[in-house]
């Protein structure tokens, strides 16, 4: 129906190129290699013995609700070490609609100063 050539073109950015078809072919080849390597392994295991239970370095397994890491606790190290950034951000988002209008007026004033007063200063220099 339409030519195959435009579908397979690479697209040029200013300084490089990117062809997704070649990438997909490469990923499929890598996937096939991984599957073939997996096929060389041992296929048999005994069910319902110790081979299928989860191993937690010898610790006892609690009930499922407590084992799942909640989303507030993921990235705890990252958020704790940058606590000053995230606390000031949380304080900025108050939920108060008057503060939203205040930010609008502040941004308008800053843009005003930059565009209009800045133009006079640059023109004077």
């Amino acid at each position, binding site marked *: 129906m339409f030519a195959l050539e435009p579908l397979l073109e690479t697209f040029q950015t200013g300084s490089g190129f990117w062809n997704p078809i070649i990438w997909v072919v490469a990923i499929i080849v890598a996937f096939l290699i991984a599957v073939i390597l997996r096929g060389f392994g041992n296929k048999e295991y005994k069910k319902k013995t110790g081979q299928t239970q989860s191993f937690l370095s010898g610790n006892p397994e609690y009930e499922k609700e407590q084992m*799942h890491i909640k989303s507030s606790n993921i990235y705890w190290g*990252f958020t704790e070490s940058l606590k000053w950034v*995230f606390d000031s951000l949380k304080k900025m988002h108050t939920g108060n609609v008057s*503060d939203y209008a205040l930010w609008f007026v502040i941004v308008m004033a800053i843009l005003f100063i930059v565009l209009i007063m800045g133009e006079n200063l640059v023109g004077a220099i």
Partner: protein
Amino acid sequence: MNVADLIDLLLQHSPALIVAVPLLGAFITPLISRLNDKVRNIFVILTLGLTASLVFLLASDVFTGNIHTYIFGSQDLALPVVRILFEVDAMSAFMAIISVILSLVAVIYSWSFMKENTGLDKYYTLILLMTAGMLGMELTGDLFNFFVFLEITSISSAALVAFWTNKAKSVEAGFKYIVISTIGALFILFSVAMFYGQYNALNMAMIASAIQYTFLDKIALVLLIAALAMKAGVVPMHMWLPDAYGKAPSSVTLILVGTTQASLYGVFRVCFTIYGGAINLSSISVGWILVILGIITMLLGVAMAIIQTDFKRLIAFGAVAEIGYMLLGIGTGLVVMLNPEMTATGLAAMKGGIFHIMNDALDVGLLFLVAGAIYYATKETSLNKLGGLARNMKYTTVFFIIGLLAVSGMPPMNGFASKLLIYESTYQLNPILSIIAILSSIMLLAVFVKVFHSAFLGPALPKFENVKEVPKSMLIAMGAIATIIIIFGLFPELIINNIVEPAANALVNYGGYVREVIPSFTGGV
């Protein structure tokens, strides 16, 4: 008359029909919904399907280089201000395609998602009104008409955000949204009045041909950029966006993404077309202002997204960060527009920014639909209470993986294609911009991997024993968007040459836009 004549007639009247068909459908919907619910759903889908086919028909002609105009009023172009002009160039057609695809998918999704709610006739009426308002905002060539359609869109979307009136937070989010929208729209009207007072014209092309960069014009530029950027969710005026996106029904959030991008389109129309001849006279570059706003938006959006625990609020902050990419790309194009050595860089940056508008609407839209599907199945919105859902909802998991890869710019999805263009072209301008853009992409990947782990991976929780897969219409809607994402990702060159490049050229070439209305206009790129 034969089919070719009919198609020509439709093409000639299509700018008016595209806005009139959803508007008429919105007024007929309450009458039809008295008959039967299924008939009303099919009628709404047929109306939006007709609008979509008209948009594609118009776009296929506009992308080859013609600009379509449609005049409501006096045909004699010498008389001033006695007509309203719709002017459709490639950028308007691009945005119209995005809006109509989002509306159609949202209505298909809400067939099952909203089935148990009452008051659905008002819901569908408001969705059709919102679509008509969005399409009118993107097709019009007249500034006051832009304001009227902006208000139509914000009133109907505020009523839809507050649709679940039994929840306190939804009504409060709707109130915040309408207050912020109205303040922004009133300042836009103030600037329109300033333009009218100076030039006695409300038409965008006439103002562009007559503009001199006086002091009042500078005030009008500041007001327009600030108000339209607030409606588009640019930091630090973005705080209404997580509230409104997070508490609305998910199909409404999908169309809200379209309305914020229509306001972003307004920023570009103001900066490139109306002030096209006057931007060169300003010594402070407006492009650098857009670039700096884009950088702040990216960093702050991603930083706030990491610490959220509510599913839809997190995706909303991700949407805020993505708006930063669009501003960065198109701001770079504006900065280098005057420098004759770097026009290739500028054009590549603009293509990246404009392509990212469409990609972001699709990616973030797919993530919101997945969030809605999880809410429908489990009635939970907080990520702390979810877990292990991949066993029960297989298709939803696959769609979420596609959305995750696309939003963070991983190959081979469409997000990678547009972000690669933005990275490489902003590197030419200043390497630090490109580094910040790549960093926030990586942090977005971190944020969504966290969501994937908390909601889908993990042991099977006992309280989610009976959770089943979501109904078919929601799966069809999510599958449609996922298919479009994969197709755009695998064949980016096709899309960029045929759809994005005409839009970027039309935005830079404001002389062509003005010459449609005033044939004797000289000047312009």
